[in-house]
């Protein structure tokens, strides 16, 4: 029998009437990379938050190296040699990248004066080792979601912990960054560090993990060696039924006249003269690395960021898009990439988050029609399969993937003619993704148009009618997505 560095036994945890974990066991061997899998709301994050003391378990015990241990908070867990990359990025937006990377453990010299120099050196050294460029002085509030994710990862990895828990570290990263991250994970493994790895991207499990544990509805399903299993089997274990395809079959759908024309779009210091056209009933995919300007296009078209110059035509008419109100009035919608910061208000209820994009639909004059609002919210929750005890629960009581579904729901509810989706399936499980793809098809069949930005190339390939590739603020190419197109063709452009 191999030694277990971490053993969680009989963990039970209920939130109100929801049983998030029911007698769950997790045994992790020293030095392995152990995957924790399961659908949205299966209890993965909750289990990890019990480990680090964010939540107290109702029942069960935790053994570290065979010794019963209870951490009462993250600080104690860190001191006990466990560090965390949180799914919902625990960063202080008003502090700099460096300050966040060293949050709670700022270094000082012998006189008690904070030693910025050595921290900067350590940070830069670390970033260099993972081959990622980042200015330590920038405010975290200015960073893109992927950069925020890298700060969160850096913070955990610089700690020299014995166990590192990573809750969906790659959800917002593109293949390049993921590749870099995996390199460092392998280095950590060689140093004998144990990693608990949570992800909905199953390919990753086969690339780096040794063993895995599947949870479903808060219960243990199985623990396996990765080498002994296959993707379809895993999906079946997670979802509870077999799924033949990850993507719905592409159906021919009529593509009509241009609905959006973007000409010569420049943004301050970023986009360099972007031109493209979106047609009625079309799904236009945008590929590219993180920071290549994909989201900037989305934000500019939605009026969320200031543009330097550029012209927009909607339905053949020249329009000015100066604000998000302009864009919404033109029936344009945007699902932003950062759900916590920009996509939702996590302190408000599921219903309030969904209907905010179109309150007129559920009110007479300015008076809200409560019954109608409840009905609409319930309809959306059902359509997207959001797992929540009720539509009146606060968003932060939902699992990460379910929060993402709500962010999608709010714009599907608005039913805009042009919908821009920036990483729409971020953190969503395989089964639910399939349902979302069907919804996107449904939309374009009704004559809506969709721009879809995604770091997951298979997703772009499976759904898009055409694919645009961005590199350093420039549009590299725009190709028809025909049978023979290969991911390599696209990656070549994305790398410049």
């Amino acid at each position, binding site marked *: 029998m191999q030694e277990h560095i971490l053993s969680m036994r009989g963990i039970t945890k209920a939130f109100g009437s929801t049983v998030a974990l*029911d007698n769950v066991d997790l045994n992790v061997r020293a030095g392995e990379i152990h995957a924790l899998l399961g659908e949205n709301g299966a209890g993965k994050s909750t289990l990890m938050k019990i480990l680090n003391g964010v939540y107290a378990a109702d029942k069960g015990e935790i053994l570290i190296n065979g010794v019963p241990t209870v951490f009462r908070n993250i600080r104690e867990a860190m001191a006990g040699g466990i560090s965390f990359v949180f799914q919902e990025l625990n960063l202080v937006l008003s502090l700099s990248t460096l300050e966040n990377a060293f949050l709670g453990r700022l270094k000082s010299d012998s006189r008690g004066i904070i030693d910025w120099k050595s921290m900067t050196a350590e940070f830069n050294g670390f970033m260099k080792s993972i081959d990622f460029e980042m200015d330590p002085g920038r405010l975290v509030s200015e960073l893109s979601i992927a950069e925020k994710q890298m700060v969160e990862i850096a913070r955990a990895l610089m700690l020299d912990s014995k166990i590192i828990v990573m809750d969906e570290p790659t959800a917002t990263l593109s293949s390049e960054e993921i590749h870099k991250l995996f390199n460092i994970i392998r280095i950590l493994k060689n140093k004998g560090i144990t990693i608990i790895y949570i992800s909905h991207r199953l390919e990753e499990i086969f690339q780096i993990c040794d063993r895995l544990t599947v949870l479903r*509805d*808060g219960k243990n399903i199985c623990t396996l060696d990765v080498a002994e299993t296959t993707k379809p089997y895993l999906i079946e274990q997670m979802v509870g039924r077999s799924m033949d395809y990850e993507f719905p079959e592409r159906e021919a759908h009529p593509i009509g006249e241009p609905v959006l024309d973007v000409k010569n779009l420049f943004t301050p210091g970023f986009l360099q003269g972007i031109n493209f056209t979106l047609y009625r009933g079309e799904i236009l995919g945008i590929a590219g690395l993180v920071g290549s300007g994909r989201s900037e296009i989305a934000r500019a078209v939605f009026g969320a960021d200031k543009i330097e110059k550029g012209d927009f035509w909607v339905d053949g008419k020249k329009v000015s898009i100066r604000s*998000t109100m302009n864009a919404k009035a033109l029936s344009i919608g945007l699902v932003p990439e950062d759900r916590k910061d920009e996509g939702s208000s996590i302190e408000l209820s599921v219903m309030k988050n969904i209907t*905010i994009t179109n309150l007129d639909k559920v009110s007479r004059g300015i008076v809200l029609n409560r019954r109608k609002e409840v009905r609409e919210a319930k309809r959306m929750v059902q359509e997207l399969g959001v797992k929540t005890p009720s539509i009146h629960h606060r968003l932060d009581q939902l699992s990460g993937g379910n929060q993402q579904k709500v962010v999608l729901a709010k714009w599907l509810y608005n039913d805009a003619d042009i919908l821009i989706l920036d990483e729409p399936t971020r953190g969503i499980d395989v089964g639910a993704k399939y349902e979302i793809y069907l919804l996107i098809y449904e939309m374009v069949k009704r004559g809506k148009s969709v721009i879809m930005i995604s770091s997951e190339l298979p997703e772009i390939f499976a759904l898009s009618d055409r694919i645009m590739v961005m590199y350093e603020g420039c549009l590299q190419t725009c190709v028809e997505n025909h049978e023979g197109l290969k991911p390599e063709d696209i990656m070549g452009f994305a790398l410049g």
Partner: protein
Amino acid sequence: MEVAARPKDSIKNRIVDILSNNAILFLMLLLVSVVAILYPRFLTLANFNNILNQISVIGCLACGMTFVLLIGCIDLSVGSMMSLIGIMAVTVANGGREWLAIILPILAAGAIGLIKGGIIAGVNGRLGESFITTYGAQSVLAALALIIQGGLFMMVTATGIFTRIGKGANPAYVFFALIVICQFILTKTSFGRKLLFVGSNPKAARLSGVNIKFYFLMAFMMCGLISGIAGVLLPSRVMSANPTAGTNYELEAIAACVVGGVSMKGGSGSFVNTLIGVIVIGVLSNSMNLLGLSSYPQMIVKGFVIALAFALDVVNKRRQMQRG
């Protein structure tokens, strides 16, 4: 969407929950019982009226303040605004145009609110910016009141409607009407919903296509209008105005909101919270008056209650977090 039934929560846990979630109300109940036993006079209709009189003007101010707190800001200038509005109202009323003396100052207060809101919306400000802006406004308005009035008391010589609106139970009616109307606006209209959403996460509100600047403007305008109402009621009740009549009222108003449970972070709370806070503070002051405490010890006690309300809030959030 199935949810398994929760294992029975222990009775002890549930009692602690109920107690800690309503701690302020229970404390008040305790206080009321003790004072009622010591001073039977406390539970009379006359004293009840007395309390209502004492809380109504502050209550109106707190009501206006709630809008600003809900959107994540603060307004430190409502007290001095009230003084200025009072002087304005009495001046016009004494000139014989009593209806105008009621309406004009209220509109002026709304306009001043708009200006403050405009500045804060202009710089995309929140708590910090509004603190500075309204602190500045506070000293400007206070100075204006002193310059205009020269530091003197001003008696109301009018005899018509202006002298009646602040009498008897009228301010209390106005206060309750405001609470009902504002609560309706907040919970039943799209305006209120958007205001709450902006307060809770302005970035997300903007990316939902909400005109966030408009809601900052509106929150401050509502606060202005309602402080204007308070500013007219006060001189009508006490039959005089003076340039420092409203000094420190803003702090009382903020305290009432916070004690009642309106969050200073924005996006959380309601006018029912404000109502509770106003009553708690009112009953507390009244009890202390009956117990014969002088004003300085009273201030100390009030300070403790406010701190307690804050602390309870934090503790409750943490407990909820841990237990879910």
